[in-house]
């Protein structure tokens, strides 16, 4: 029996028939495997939830104890479990803290659901581990050859040079609360920036969670508690929705920055009113998508969401069969 016969795309999400569970289901289901904690993948009110310890903690924090699954079962990376007629394990996806690929085996065939992933180094989470398989399910957020993410440390250098050039202004960087925020801080530290990083209130709980899991983030301070003038020349992180809105009025002549893979396209950056776009993404870029799809050696590749036309066209050139699942509900996030 081929993997494409026992892993089934349904309206609720991908369904593993022999294990009787969904992976990242879009609606509440009795049994769910969750690849990572982003809101479009980790939804509330499932029955039994299986994920990494980190992802479960993120779900409890964001959804509340009572909505993060009736029962929660942690699974360590690489640890194997038999669920019904399928053997299941989780492997790192390199996307955010706790992010995992779901690896399923049945009768000598293997399917891997990668969730969201990236191949670029990230000091805040375990690196993506390619797993050879027969069926590989991939995202395609940045599946156009114009998306080639530069070295993130060069983008950080761009930010730090700008801070030097405008020492009286506050650099406010829009970033997603889970993953991007902590990665930015870690990159800043890696680049030798040891000053305080000021945080919008919405970003603080997850930074605390990362630190509890051993990711050191250095001197973090709430932006609302800064004394007058303290934010001049400082770096403030905030959710993208706050950077150009009323919250940002407290800042000194802010330089609006946004850290996202979309910032590679000028019009996208301009339409967001961004003054300093930082091309830092937690998703695989074009080269990483193609490399990964070829590395895992899968005969079939399913594309969950994104620019699937280009990816499927390119895969056909390598003799790989691609199929667009067009699962509705995974977000086209501006901050990816």
């Amino acid at each position, binding site marked *: 029996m081929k993997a494409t016969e026992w892993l089934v795309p349904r309206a609720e999400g991908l369904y593993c028939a022999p294990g009787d569970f969904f992976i990242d289901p879009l609606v509440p289901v009795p049994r769910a495997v969750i690849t990572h904690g982003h809101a479009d993948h980790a939804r509330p009110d499932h029955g039994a939830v299986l994920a990494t310890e980190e992802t479960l903690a993120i779900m409890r924090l964001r959804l509340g104890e009572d909505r993060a699954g009736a029962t929660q079962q942690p699974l360590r990376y690489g640890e194997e479990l038999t669920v019904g007629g399928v053997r299941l394990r989780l492997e790192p996806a390199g996307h955010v803290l706790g992010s995992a690929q779901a690896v399923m085996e049945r009768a000598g065939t293997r399917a891997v659901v990668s969730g969201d992933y990236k191949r670029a180094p990230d000091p805040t989470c375990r690196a993506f581990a390619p797993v050879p398989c027969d069926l590989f399910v991939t995202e395609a957020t940045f599946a*156009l*050859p*114009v998306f080639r993410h530069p070295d993130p440390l060069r983008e950080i250098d761009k930010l730090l040079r700008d801070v030097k*050039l405008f020492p009286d202004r506050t650099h406010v960087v829009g970033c997603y609360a889970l993953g991007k925020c902590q990665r930015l801080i870690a990159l800043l530290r890696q680049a030798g920036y040891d000053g305080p990083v000021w945080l919008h209130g919405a970003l603080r709980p997850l930074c605390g969670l990362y630190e509890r899991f051993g990711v050191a983030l250095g001197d973090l301070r709430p932006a609302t508690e800064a004394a007058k003038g303290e934010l001049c020349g400082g770096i403030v992180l905030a959710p993208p929705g706050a950077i*150009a809105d009323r919250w940002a009025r407290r800042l000194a002549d802010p330089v609006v920055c946004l850290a996202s893979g979309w910032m590679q*396209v000028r019009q996208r950056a301009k339409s967001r009113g961004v*003054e*300093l776009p930082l091309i830092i993404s937690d998703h695989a870029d074009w080269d990483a998508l193609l490399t990964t799809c070829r590395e895992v050696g899968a005969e079939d590749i399913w594309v969950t969401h994104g*620019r699937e*036309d280009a990816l499927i066209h390119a895969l056909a050139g390598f003799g790989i069969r691609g199929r667009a699942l067009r699962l509705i509900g995974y977000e086209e996030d501006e901050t990816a």
Partner: protein
Amino acid sequence: MRLFSALLERLAFTPARTVKLALLRAYFAEAPDPDRGYALAAIAGTLVLPAARRSLIRDIATARVDPVLFELSYDYVGDLAETVALIWPVREAAVEEPPSVSLVVETLRAATKSEMPGIVERWLDASAPSVRYAILKLMTGGLRVGASGRLAKTALAEIAGIAPDEIEEIWHGLEPPYRPLFDWIEGRESRPDPAGAPVFRPPMLAHPLEDADLAALDPEDWRAEWKWDGIRVQLVRTAGGVRLYSRTAENIGAAFPEILDALDATGEAVALDGELLVLRDGEAAPFAELQQRLNRKTPTGAMMARFPAFVRLYDILFDNGEDVRGLAFDVRRKRLEAWVERVRPERMDLSRLIPFADFSELAALREAARAASIEGLMLKRGASAYLPGRPRGMWWKWKRAPLTVDAVLMYAQRGHGKRSSYYSDFTFGLWREGEDGPELVPIGKAYFGFTDEELRFLDRWVRHHTIGRFGPVREVEKALVLEIAFDAAQRSTRHKSGIALRFPRIARIRADKPAHEADGLDAFVKAYLAH
């Protein structure tokens, strides 16, 4: 090229003028000669390169990239240079350094057509995406950097601690890569001498006149002329050439060849100050007609016949090669009249002086002038020398009281820069009878005229009365009346309402007035567009 591409990138995203200036200063301080001179030329629009065909760029890209993927990408990005810059697959690790700005400029000038593709491919291979983008934009000419030549000159002036006008005065005598200019502003050499070049002279500007100012003026000392509603220009002819400059030192001659021809035909060494206008039935036409010509870099014959341009002369700066700017207005005026009388230039006439006994007579004349081509009056002190900039107490502009209309706020959009968190761009409309009863039709957009406090009120009002969102635009309840002041109303085929306002601004927020009592479109047209 790395410095230049970083500058381009940062300028493109920066709304604030002061920040753009800081970026330009930093670039000019850091970049070497002659790169920075060519960069300055590219920003100021004075870099003349053989135009590379867009098809060349497309061809070298599609030779390396799967055409389907190229089309999908181009479709997504929307800009050819940007698509190619991002998609360019490097064949092997870069062996060469990216080219410098000057190498690109000099090579583009010298290379033959058949050499070009190979050269460009090597450059792209050696460069990162933002550098590729800068190279391709230099090649295709559409730089659109988000900074004007004037801004770049202002940055240079700030480096030297001088007024930007000092640079304007010699600018048009210089050529890329402007080494003598950099030598001067950095103190290595003295100021370059424009000699016989037809350079721009900074114009003398007027202050708005308030009624309080008027009381202190003695009518004897003052001369009055109409303030015509065209664009202020400077005409310069020397042995070195003929130029038509805008008030901001832009060389706009190519758009008005008939004026250049008329000026050249005089054979005079002269610099004149005047208003560029379109002639309609022997009269100056409203600004909208001139706008038709301003929108074109080079006019067609048909455009020139439909919208014939002429210049109404205000002043003379150089007469037979002699600098007369130090003379009094009254003396210059005599020289100007004598010049017109002697030379009888084509496509030029004199701006008439208006005789008056006292200011109340003048005020009455001002209010009675309904012609759309007149903005108001100019008052010039008879003893005033022609001084660059806006000296106090010399020239006054006495605009007609603005026209007003009560309109209803319909849509709002967020502003830019400091205003990016405020809804500060407002679209307003007037009532008309629609098929299903009264409906609002938008007549214009205003984004100034209000105080900071009023802006906070409007921002709050918009947020609390939003009924629809279209991307960055919010539609609001049709419930707030705004008193809109404007200088003139014109017919327009580009607007749904058929009218366009000149300089619309928000004069007052009429929160007290019910929306249904705002003005109607029909009455508006009758009042302001009847003639």
